[in-house]
């Protein structure tokens, strides 16, 4: 399971960076999304994966049993997912607006910011 996740995370990071380096705006956003998912899986992996041991204290017990899944990474991932969801939604609307105003999808042609007044 760990090995599989390691490979997936590596692929997501590689694909994300590759997509970000393309000139198209849409690919830029896709790259960012892939990178974000890679980071989320990385948190999941590094929080040590434990199978079938939820961190729940039984009604008769006072503390957690011997082996339990760490709940913190899940809280972190949940936060990160919500944040990246909002940011990605904004970024998609931004490229749509930019496409309407600049009328191109090519980053190389977006050089109004370099113009001398």
């Amino acid at each position, binding site marked *: 399971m760990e090995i599989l996740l390691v490979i997936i995370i590596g692929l997501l990071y590689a694909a*994300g960076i590759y997509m*970000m380096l393309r000139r198209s*705006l849409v690919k*830029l956003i896709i790259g*960012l999304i892939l*990178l*974000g998912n*890679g*980071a989320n899986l*990385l*948190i999941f*992996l*590094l*929080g*040590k994966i434990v199978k079938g041991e939820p961190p729940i204290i039984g009604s008769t017990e006072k503390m957690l049993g011997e082996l339990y899944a*760490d709940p*913190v*990474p899940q809280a*972190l991932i949940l*936060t*990160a997912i919500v*944040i990246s969801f*909002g*940011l990605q939604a*904004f*970024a998609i609307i*931004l*490229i749509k*607006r*930019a496409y309407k*105003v*600049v009328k191109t999808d090519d*980053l190389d042609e*977006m*050089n*109004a*910011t*370099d*113009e*001398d*007044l």
Partner: protein
Amino acid sequence: MSNPYIVLPVLFQLFVAVILMFAWNRKNLQKLISVVGSLIALLISLALLIKVNQEGIQTMQAGGWIAPFGITFVADTLSALLVVLTATSGLAVSVFSVGSVRNARIKFGYFPIFHLLIMGLSGAFLTGDIFNLYVWFEIIIISSFVLITIGGEKAQLEGAIKYVAMNLLASVVFLTAIAILYGLTGSLNMADLSLQVANVSNRGLVNVTAILFLVGFGIKSAVFPLYFWLPASYHTPPPAISAIFGGLLTKVGVYAMLRVFTLIFIPDDFLTTVITVMALLTILSGGFGALMQNNIRKVFSYLIICHIGFMLAGLGIYSTVAIAGAVFYLVHDIVVKTNLFLVSGVIFKFRGTYSMRLLGGFYKEQPLMSLFMAIPLFSLIGIPPLSGFWGKLLLIEGAMDQSNILMIVFILLGSFLTLFIIAKLWAEVFWKDAQELPKKKYIRYFDELKPLKKQAMLASVVFLSLISLGIGFGAEWVMQLALRIAENLMDPSPYIQAVLGS
């Protein structure tokens, strides 16, 4: 000891933002609430600084969870000082916005989002939890995304794409670093991490994580190989917005670096060398970049990069004196950079252009205002006794102690480049004879504004100039504060003790 009021500067900004949303369509009411709110926020943060100064480091455990399990808020002198500076810049920009921001932008919620941005900045300075720092960073960037695009002009949108892409990338790098750090130590509390990271046996992985943090914060603070988004975007939004960006957003990256590389990762020779080389090249590339520009806002953008290099140099030298220099420079730079972008806004309102070639004759027309504008410009160079001088003095002293000749040469070269650029700018904008410029229809010139708006714009420039003067002439006091902050950064045991208990 848990003191809930240390999050008051954060909560109050949120409160102001919520109140502003209730006054969505009433722009004059919004302006009034924003200015009064910023003023009260400044008083609250000053009270926090005084309290921290008298009683030492204050902490708050959110929800009563004992550290290191819950989220901790920590107000040490550095955090409290930066919160005060944030509130000061916030007040100046809020007053300036009364005069300069267009109604169309106010209708799309300029003021509430501005206060949310200030809230994010205050939160980032006050948190003692590395993942919570990430969350505050996200609050800062989402508010800044809206502010940079609000109005939707062509240049703004293009600048925003570069800004958004790089900042999202920085967030992912930062998140990756947090993930690895959590995997190594199982903790997120910065004070706890400080103890845990020292015990990790896999030093190679610790160094990789440190470099990831350096890259993440490096993008945010625009250091040498990672700064290209800044000059492509900071000159596109209206001057009030670029003032708050230029003054505070890059500095929060510098603060994060100061915190992380003194508390969690104690830099070894390799890391200090990397930081030093980055600092030197940042000074050089920022300085030369500014030389080439004609748009005054682009000149100031490149000067931000150049002067981030000075602060990074303090971290690279890594001695108490040098860190104190970096902290002093941080204090000076926040006030001056905010002011410079406000100055560019005032000049634009008079002339309708940012181009150095077309500008001119400002001194002849507005002699008194020009004098106030000269204060931030000359502080930036570091002419004694203005505020920029003292930070550089400490930095050079720190470099001297380690006989780091290369560093001294670059700091002096950076100052010299700044001198040359500011002299050129002064000659072009203020002393050169004025040219007749064609009036542009879509700009509301200064003369057409109501008296209150005129006064608001000029008052904020004068206010920040006087604070610059205050820092310069009250350097003794600020320097003692900076030295004490540097001592606390170099020896984090009081910080750790305050958070974790004995």
